[in-house]
């Protein structure tokens, strides 16, 4: 479902003397439907970089990345837009939303974009928000005013509201209390059970041990480091 082959990435900092930072080389991985794979490696090793290349907001300089048959590394913007709408979900660490849009709408939005009727989309959003213990009194408010943990849960609800066949998770259990952490792990297990291919970054070792079928250490993809 998610395939990376021999991927390389460099950044050219034009405004800092044209410095070229080669940050990744020969990165390859595969995630099959129903599988959960963790990216590991020290901070700065390139876990997020690889994940962003799969999401498509970082360009791939060499090699190929394919998600559900779409060649992300060379696709037209509209193909990536379509892929993100139907197939590829992403729970980032930061919630980026329009101010003043109510939480219920923020969570329902991926379904509305797919043409799901409003009542159905909001019912599904409400169900997830309840499971993630966001009180109903908050649903009509914008999440921009919420605490970090609450925003994190709104972001997770938004990422799980549509059953994406492929899902990228960046530290989904960070900054959550025990009960919510358990809920998120259940959501991930349910996504695996329905055949979702999941690639995640988990600093939470307990979560990683329980959820992940394999680990991929990105340290081996650093240029000049033997795998």
């Amino acid at each position: 479902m998610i395939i990376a082959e021999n991927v390389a990435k460099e950044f050219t900092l034009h405004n800092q003397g044209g410095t070229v930072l080669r940050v990744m080389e020969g990165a390859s991985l595969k995630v099959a439907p129903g599988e959960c794979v963790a990216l590991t490696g020290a901070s700065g090793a390139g876990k997020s970089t690889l994940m962003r290349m799969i999401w498509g907001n970082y360009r791939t300089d060499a090699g190929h990345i394919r998600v559900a048959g779409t060649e992300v590394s060379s696709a037209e913007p509209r193909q990536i837009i379509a892929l993100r709408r139907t197939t590829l979900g992403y729970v980032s660490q930061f919630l980026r939303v329009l101010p003043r849009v109510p939480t219920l709408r923020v969570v329902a939005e991926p379904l509305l974009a797919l043409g799901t009727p409003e009542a159905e989309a909001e019912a599904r959003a409400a169900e997830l928000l309840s499971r993630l213990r966001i009180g109903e009194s908050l649903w009509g408010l914008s999440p921009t005013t919420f605490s970090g943990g609450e925003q994190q849960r709104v972001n997770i609800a938004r990422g799980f509201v549509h059953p994406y066949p492929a899902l990228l998770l960046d530290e989904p259990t960070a900054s959550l209390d025990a009960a919510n952490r358990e809920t998120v792990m259940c959501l991930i297990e349910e996504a695996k059970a329905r055949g979702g291919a999941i690639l995640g970054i988990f600093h939470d070792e307990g979560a990683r041990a329980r959820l992940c079928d394999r680990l991929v250490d990105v340290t081996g993809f650093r240029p000049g480091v033997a795998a």
Partner: protein
Amino acid sequence: MAMLDATVGHMPGMVETAPAPGPLLSVRDVGKRYGARIGCADVSFDLWPGEVLGIVGESGSGKSTLLGCLSGQLVPDTGEVVFDSRDRGPVDTLRMSERERRHLGRTDWAFVHQNPRDGLRLGVSAGGNVGERLMANGARHYGNIRATAQDWLARVEIDPGRIDDRPRQFSGGMQQRLQIARNLVSGPRLAFMDEPTGGLDVSVQARLLDLLRGLVRDICLSVVLVTHDLAVVRLLADRLMVMKGGHVIESGLTDQVLDDPQHAYTQLLVSSVLQV
């Protein structure tokens, strides 16, 4: 796309559109000079149904010239602009007659100006402003026109009770929403927007952006959006073109251009945004 189109049917005042097989707008090698100075040069892109394309760049980068060339307000020196019109299929809008272009301007196209005063008739009531395009397109039943105008005022969050007030009595944010209603009432498929959130307070901007996003989704509207505000394109645009000195120097998926800019100028632009 088919799913988005399916929602069009039950919008009052909307004309149903069939899913278009090709791009809605095809722009090839458009260029315009002002004497020896380049307005814009060698601009080519395709815009697909339901897509929002942001054009960013600083003042003088050529983005407004380009918007003028695309929307028929300026005549480019070179290139072609092919629009897939509802009644006649693909037409070269640069080579059509003024009458045909005016027809397009009140049916398939919309233009939202930065200053609502440029896009509204200030001496005419809010309802009259919204109803004008309907009448120009042949609507004659007063009750229906008024009902549609009321519906659109509500959709842009203006109290329909103010239908008989003149735009002069509205705040800047309300005027901008009225301009949007006036433009979208005829169910256009393509809207050109020049800094639509330009002169507005930040809180009013957010409200307008939310509104625009909902409208884009509900009526499968394609938008060419010119702005210098990167936060606005991040939230509204699917794709981005960065202009400098009349040329498109970088283009791509919005978050890719903003998160992983390739060109020196784009890197400068992105790194110069003040964080709040």
